[in-house]
């Protein structure tokens, strides 16, 4: 369904010029720009997509989670500016009369929450990895990402 996204984009603005006799202007070479986006999972069915360029992690619940939850009718989100340590309760998702707590997969500060979920909680079911994102965290310890589960390891936690 998804694969751990690992993109390395390298953008070089200009090529170094050779030799001297050309009358082309000298253009200085800008440093190489590289973005790495990593997606990791927790046993409690949260995922975080971390962009090391911005230092932000986008938190979602997984597609497997939304399937086993049923129709989501309400999403309880943290407030912007609140700080969490990894494992703290971040909010909750309610479906079919069951309120399921969500936990912070990484430590950091909430910089944005998905306000659309207020009026459209069903987005979590329809588009758990994309439009149904829950909140964005500015990671205080980016290294925590490495301790989370890869997609393969995550799938093993719930498959028989």
């Amino acid at each position: 369904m998804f694969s751990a996204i690992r993109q390395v984009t390298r953008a070089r603005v200009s090529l170094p010029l050779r030799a001297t006799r050309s009358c082309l202007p000298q253009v200085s070479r800008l440093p190489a720009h590289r973005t790495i986006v990593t997606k990791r999972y927790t046993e409690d069915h949260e995922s975080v997509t971390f962009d090391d360029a911005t230092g932000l992690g986008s938190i979602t619940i997984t597609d497997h989670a939304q399937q086993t939850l049923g129709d989501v009718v309400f999403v309880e989100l943290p407030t912007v500016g609140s700080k969490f340590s990894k494992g703290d309760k971040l909010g909750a998702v309610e479906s079919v009369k069951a309120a399921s707590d969500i936990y912070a997969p990484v430590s950091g500060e909430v910089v944005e929450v998905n306000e659309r979920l207020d009026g459209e909680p069903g987005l979590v079911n329809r588009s758990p990895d994309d439009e149904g994102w829950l909140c964005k965290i500015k990671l205080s310890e980016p290294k925590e990402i490495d301790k989370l589960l890869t997609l393969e390891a995550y799938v093993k936690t719930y498959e028989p």
Partner: protein
Amino acid sequence: MSLPPVFFHYFQTPLPYTRTLALQERIHQIQLASRRASCQHDILLLLQHRPVYTSGRRQTEHELQTERVRLTKLGADFVTTSRGGQLTYHGPGQLVGYPLLDLGRTSPPIGIREYICKMQKMIQSYLFSAHKLTHVPSEHTGVFLDPATKVASIGVQVRHRLTTHGFAMNVTQEPLEWFNKVIACGLADVKAGCIALAAGEQTQVHDVVEGVVDAFSQSYGRDMEKLELESAGELGKAILELELEALEAGGWPRIPIS
């Protein structure tokens, strides 16, 4: 791999809500801690509450302020909780069940929707087998005797795959007057029903316990074992304490105070 039994206990006296919630929390913490040692027990608490209105996590304190004042004047408690679902009533004459289970015990773990589904099926099959009451299917969670009559409600919280809160089933007519004072579960056109009226029987709550335990066993595929309080350590002590407190709390209003 065969699963260990679910230990159940039925409380003899209607319990104060907040203290029972504290017991659930305590059991939850014990289960979380003993998980590492793989020795935590699945528990089913069966009980009645003293008159209380409770709300779920969707409603804010601000929204509930007026209701809180109005309803406590009737002689009931009012407590906000973290379970799913909205406003409801619990009181004598209604069987309340709190399955405190580890959904991760099985491989694969039981999903939440499945857990709720089994809870609904359990109540439906109990009503039919013990009282010949048929339910009607509904898009709403809970058990309905007809589209406008709800006989049982469900509201659950799940944290790290450990469940708290559960279900409530109206047995006698006593809860109905209290239900009439509110719009329960956000359903304006629905009224509360009970087994006694629907089946034309003089059933009391203690009469239904055995049948519900059996239905639970069938629905969840688990053996059930009565919890022996003396040999249940910390858990047994906490349950005994709560039983004593309930006795000491004395009587309660049978109908809402006007």
